[in-house]
């Protein structure tokens, strides 16, 4: 994912581009037709990755309660918008600073392609602009992972503040270590499409958020029980996961960085094999543990397989792809249950899917496929730890500062009434009653925080 040329400053009249482009393209060893094909595939891939935001929006809103739907959708609308904008201002040039010390570099504010950067002189696979857009979509994807784990109780402003800083600074700076040609790239760490750089980075942010926020009211009880807070719309959730799978055609397929038939076709196949294996494995794992097959676990399993293959999709044979996906599918089910058991509330399983399976997918590159070996496994481990420590600490810091400044959580009254009314003043389903008695608050089952919140909410409604 490196820029081959040091970028030059300055705006260029369009007239010059055409002639300069044609002349330079000949020197780069790829025909103009092939460059067009490559760039076209990359632009389509950017569009496919963009579709993942549709997937996240529908998945997250489907798996949470109706009274918070507008709020979740708002967050999922905000993140791609702010992600693309900040990537244009700072992110792209933080992630690809050109020549730098390997840890931090910045090529300047804004985007400034040189004359040749819209030709194959920039890269035989894509133009400067295609590069920018494709990478911008990735950045937004990493930030949006966090929104699922903090759902149903985070203040909107707090989340927007966190997400902006996370996508503008944290993601691209740590991303430069590998894709920007930084120290991890030099070491030999390998992350084809972002199991670590995108998914685990998002996952660490999600974990930090869930830890500092605390669980939803009523989720855990005094005696340690885990209460179910069921999804309000499984069709939406299912549509979301399949949209995400569709987006992954671009996420992994586009990470080949050109339209090379061999590489791209293999990558799409390994991606789909891992997704399928993850889904089946999760189905049967949840069936075995819970005596009934859980659809939301099956959906998480598909995503787990996708995240798991993402680090090495271009390296794997058919059977390795299936195995990686299947293991991810089993792991994600146990992870969801165990994370609940330690009372970290993750409404959509984002930590399990993206962090846990992101780590698995990264390690898998050292275990399966063309790069397998102890040395590679070592590099993968170094990368995982480096990204983990840095991202987790950074996310904790940002959340902690935001918490100190403006608070993280909505009031208990608002949480019970629903964030749609509290944060937005507008329900998602205006014709329906969305405060249900399911997952509600029979006081006998609540812990102290729940009791207090319930009492406060009663007072609130009496006052009206």
């Amino acid at each position, binding site marked *: 994912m490196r820029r081959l040329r040091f970028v030059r400053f300055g705006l260029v009249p369009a007239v010059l581009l055409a002639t300069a482009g044609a002349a330079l393209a000949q020197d780069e060893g790829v025909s103009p037709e092939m460059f067009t094909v490559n760039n076209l595939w990359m632009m389509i891939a950017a569009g496919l990755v963009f579709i993942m935001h549709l997937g996240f929006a529908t998945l997250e809103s489907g798996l949470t309660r109706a009274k918070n739907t507008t709020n979740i959708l708002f967050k999922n609308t905000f993140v791609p918008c702010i992600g693309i904008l900040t990537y244009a201002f700072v992110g792209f040039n933080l992630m690809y600073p050109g020549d730098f010390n390997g840890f931090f570099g910045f090529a300047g504010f804004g985007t400034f392609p040189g004359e040749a950067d819209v030709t194959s002189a920039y890269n035989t696979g894509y133009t400067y602009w295609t590069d920018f857009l494709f990478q911008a979509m990735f950045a937004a994807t990493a930030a949006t992972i966090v929104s699922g784990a903090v759902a149903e109780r985070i203040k909107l402003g707090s989340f927007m503040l966190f997400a902006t800083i996370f996508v503008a600074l944290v993601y691209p700076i740590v991303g430069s270590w590998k894709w920007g040609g930084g120290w991890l790239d030099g070491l030999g760490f390998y992350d084809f499409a972002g199991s670590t750089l995108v998914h685990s980075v998002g996952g660490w942010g999600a974990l930090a958020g869930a830890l500092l926020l605390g669980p939803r009211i009523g989720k855990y009880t005094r005696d340690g029980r885990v*209460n179910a807070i069921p*999804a309000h719309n499984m069709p939406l959730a299912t549509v979301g996961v399949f949209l995400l799978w569709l987006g992954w055609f671009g996420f992994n397929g586009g990470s080949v960085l050109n339209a090379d038939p061999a590489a791209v076709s293999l990558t799409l196949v390994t991606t789909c094999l891992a997704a399928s294996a993850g889904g089946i494995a999760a189905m049967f794992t949840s069936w075995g543990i819970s005596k009934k097959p*859980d659809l939301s676990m099956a959906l998480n399993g598909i995503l787990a397989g996708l995240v798991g293959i993402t680090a090495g999709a271009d390296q794997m044979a058919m059977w390795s792809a299936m195995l990686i996906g299947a293991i991810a599918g089993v792991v994600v089910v146990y992870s*969801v249950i165990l994370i*609940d058991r330690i009372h970290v509330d993750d409404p959509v399983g984002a930590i399990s899917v993206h962090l846990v399976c992101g780590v698995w997918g990264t390690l898998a590159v050292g275990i399966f496929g063309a790069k397998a070996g102890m040395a590679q496994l070592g590099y993968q481990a170094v990368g995982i730890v480096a990204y983990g420590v840095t991202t987790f600490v950074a996310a904790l810091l940002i959340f902690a500062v935001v918490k100190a400044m403006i608070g993280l959580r909505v009031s208990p009254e608002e949480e019970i009434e629903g964030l749609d009314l509290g944060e937005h003043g507008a329900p998602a389903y205006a014709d329906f009653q969305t405060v249900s008695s399911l997952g509600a608050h029979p006081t006998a089952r609540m812990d102290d925080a729940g009791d207090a919140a319930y009492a406060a909410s009663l007072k609130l409604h009496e006052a009206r």
Partner: protein
Amino acid sequence: MKKIEAIIKPFKLDEVKEALAQQNIQGMTISEVKGFGRQKGHSELYRGAEYTVDFLPKVKIEVLVADDQAAAAADAIIAAAKTGRIGDGKLFISTVEEIIRIRTGEHGESAV
């Protein structure tokens, strides 16, 4: 004038409606309600966490009848709604003080 309220199992609604039609009772109001009596709730499972749903979906039917129709109407409802299993529901008969048809202003038995 009497009001009959019956809480029945939802899938019995059509049968009860037919049975009432045979008694020449054409009008009724229904609502979807939740409730339980002796019928226990059931257990559901979500992402490894088990939870009990105590309230079961039911349908409440309200019909207004003339005094001399009440017994026959009640019998018809009961016969149609009965399955013999726990959870069949209950029927309540109460006296109504006044009935008024909104469109015409008719009172009493002619408004039934």
